[in-house]
């Protein structure tokens, strides 16, 4: 990066370090922090939307839909989430390829032959002719879906509980005004539930934050991948030889996560305060009294 980095072998001390930390692979390492943030930015709204749909489904008066919602919300309870993270991408990938196989291929050969899963070349996802970045993007896409499905189920649990926590009298009042069920839900239930949902949702955000290193298991080149790659001992065949430094790389990641949780905690505390304003809860009452005094 710097002009004096041309010959790494002649460098010493801080200069060596500044060159070492700005190599091309290190830039990829720094970019992978962006991957983590991107995953968070996409997954959190998706999970919230899925959770909202799941919570509404499990309150539905249409029986099969309610069953679907109940099964979806309870599936994460007894099973470790990492099983879902391993299961969902493979299962989705095979489901996509199987569907494409039905439409795009004209062979009658079964997709499962013994221990192999075989689709014709046209049905492959992504196509074997597509460039490497498409493969990477597809991997991240599957990971986002896996995260959204699992955290959607968590969020559905929280939102379902929050909807039940809205005082019944509020809804009865709305009904007494002659609102339909739909109007009650839209005008009274949903605006009021957020303050009850917030503690659960902020916990969920923390869990999501701490689940992001699992991207590594899904084959995405994330921070854990690069920390292992860069930290491993480098012999003198490399431009920047060094002993096993993985400990320091993982320490850097640890600090990154501690910082993220620390910031999140502060922001969430403020949001909680904001949302309890004017609510008929203890926190809301405390705010009201504080303002009066």
């Amino acid at each position: 990066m710097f002009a004096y980095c041309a010959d790494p072998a002649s460098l010493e001390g801080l200069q060596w370090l500044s060159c070492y930390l700005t190599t091309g692979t290190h830039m990829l390492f720094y970019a992978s922090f962006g991957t983590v943030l991107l995953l968070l930015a996409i997954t959190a709204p998706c999970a919230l939307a899925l959770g909202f749909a799941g919570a509404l489904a499990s309150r539905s008066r249409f029986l099969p839909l309610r069953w679907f919602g109940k099964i979806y919300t309870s599936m994460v309870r007894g099973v470790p989430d990492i099983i879902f993270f391993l299961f969902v991408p493979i299962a989705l990938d095979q489901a996509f390829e199987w569907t494409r196989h039905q439409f795009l291929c004209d062979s009658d050969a079964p997709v499962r032959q013994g221990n192999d899963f075989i689709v014709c070349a046209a049905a492959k996802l992504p196509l074997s002719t597509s460039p490497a970045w498409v493969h990477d993007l597809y991997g991240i896409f599957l990971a986002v879906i896996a995260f959204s499905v699992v955290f959607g189920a968590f969020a559905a649990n929280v939102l379902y509980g929050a909807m039940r926590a809205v005082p019944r009298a509020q809804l009865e009042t709305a009904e007494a005004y002659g609102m339909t069920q739909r109007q009650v839900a839209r005008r009274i239930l949903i605006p009021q539930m957020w303050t009850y949902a917030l503690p659960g949702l902020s916990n969920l955000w923390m869990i999501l934050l701490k689940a992001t290193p699992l991207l590594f298991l899904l084959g995405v080149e994330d921070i854990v991948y690069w920390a292992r790659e860069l930290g491993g001992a480098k012999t003198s065949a490399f431009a920047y030889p060094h002993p096993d430094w993985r400990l320091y790389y993982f320490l850097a990641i640890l600090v990154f996560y501690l910082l993220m949780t620390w910031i999140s905690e502060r922001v969430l505390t403020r949001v909680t305060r904001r949302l309890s304003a004017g609510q008929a809860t203890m926190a809301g009452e405390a705010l009201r009294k504080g303002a009066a005094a």
Partner: protein
Amino acid sequence: MSCAQTITDYALRSLGYGERLLPRSDFDLCQQFVLIGSGLIWNVYFAFFALLFGFFLANALALAKASPNPWLRKPAEAFIFLFRGSPLFIQFFLAYEALVMLPRAGVEIFGLTVQTSWLTRAWAGALIVLTLNTAAYSAQIFHGALMAVPKGDLEAADAYGLSGWKKFRRVMWPTMMRLAWPAYTNEAIFLFHATTLVFFSAFPAFQQRGDSLYYASYFVDRTFNPFVAYPIAAGYFILGTLVLISVFGMVNRRLNRHLPGAARRIRYRPLLLR
């Protein structure tokens, strides 16, 4: 190969007994059930001992966090923040890399040579990480419960002339446990589920002795069929979770035995905690 034969070959495979080689082709359902079940031994081992040691450590940490003495309070707060603020996955990596750096020949302490190589093995290293992790989460729960002990209980204890250790042992600690128990049950379930991470992080599975998810993913890698092995592992975990809930429910009933009708069933709410 009959299923009985498979059981004798592979039931204790995760501990290193029985057949040395894992099945390589012609996987049948019986093999998958037996091997994944065999791996569950490790999950139960990690969960049991981490909860056992973590419980005592968490009590100490919760009391330290509630202490007015900053020399006790600050380290406890830092410990809890460190372990609750970072992913378990990263903690495993970090601990492994740190433990590997210990000198291979052992450490000299007061003329005695202490072997350290066993620390890098999963049964010890991962157990230490899991213990510290659950201790931090549980300490936060216990601290919250300790702060929620009703003032009237403490005044009653004073009125009876109890003080110091006796007051803590007879009044504060039982109430703290009673209040914390539902949340602690959730934490125990989370820990049980977190044990699946051990062999997917830094700790290598020595001679392919892994936990149930290790074997499940072994089968999936060989058969390209996630629809059999993962549901089997999931089924085992649902059973394990049910057992855990019933055991903790029994303790909950015992803790609340003096309160008629108070020993309600623990509702499992997975996320209101972490």
